């Protein structure tokens, strides 16, 4: 048995989105079975199946160091705080 990752696309500009996975003996059977498992209520009008063995996946811990870099999360907060401090300073001087 193989596992296939299921991607559905709705009508319009939406992109294909991951919806889950399905186990089947071959791609043809997977395509037959995915229709009533994932698209019974026309949840999309197109479906992609990707053999999980063809997915290039990251190893454990590969991404972790990037979780500790607040300087890459630029929400403008520090600049805003500095500008406010500057404003308060000049206001006090007047």
């Amino acid at each position: 048995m193989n596992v296939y990752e299921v991607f559905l696309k709705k009508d319009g500009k939406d992109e294909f989105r991951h919806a889950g996975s399905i186990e089947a003996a071959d791609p043809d059977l997977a395509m037959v079975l995915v229709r009533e498992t994932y698209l019974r209520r026309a949840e999309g009008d197109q479906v992609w199946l990707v053999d999980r063995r063809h997915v290039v996946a990251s190893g454990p811990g590969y991404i972790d160091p990037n979780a500790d870099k607040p300087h890459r999360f630029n929400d403008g907060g520090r600049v805003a705080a500095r500008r406010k401090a500057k404003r308060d300073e000049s206001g006090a001087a007047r």
Partner: protein
Amino acid sequence: MSAGRRDWSAAEREYLLAFADDEHLMGQQHTEWIGTAPFLEEDLAFASIAQDELGHAAALYELLGDADDLAFRRDADGYRSCALVELPCPDWAEALARHWLYDLAERHRWQSLGAGIDDRLDGVVARARREEEYHRLHAAALIGRLYGQDGDAHERLDAAVRSLLPFADALWEPVAGEHEAHRAGLATVTSAQLRARWRPEVEAVVGPVPWDELANLGQDARRQRTEHFASLFDRITEVFRIDPNAIW
């Protein structure tokens, strides 16, 4: 050009009723696998197919009268179903084999109904033909995969197909009213011609079949119910009988 609604002759009714009854009982038989099919995805697929078949039956019944009357309030004698759809198939291999044999046949039957006779019939046919494509694909994918293997899957499926073939082939015995339905354009192809299209499709998968040696179910089999009908009909009407006048 709009065909409007046709006032069906008695013969045309018989012809449509035979098809509707097959669809009704086939759908019912399939629903009995809900929750017990071998795996979840197949459970869903089979249940969907069952729903489609019951929908076809309801739509055909509506052409002829009140669907509830025809589905639930008729005597066994009034049914025109073939033996194939009345048989119990408690083994999954049998249920799958029947699904395959039946849907191969059903596709030909939908394609053989004439267009432009009745507006509603045209609508039913268009819908059913689209749905049948999936039924055929589903059956072919499973049968192709399992039949092509060595060992248990092949043997069980082959035994199931062989045991069902006499009943499946008898589905093509001329239906009462067929001659007139053919003349009126309701049937564009005779049962004999459809049988001649169906048989090679079966043989393409299971190999040569000695058609002439299959057990003969007798003439006019659709006018007699098999011994299995009573219990099947009992299950069909189980809920209905609790309150026949309930509004759903």
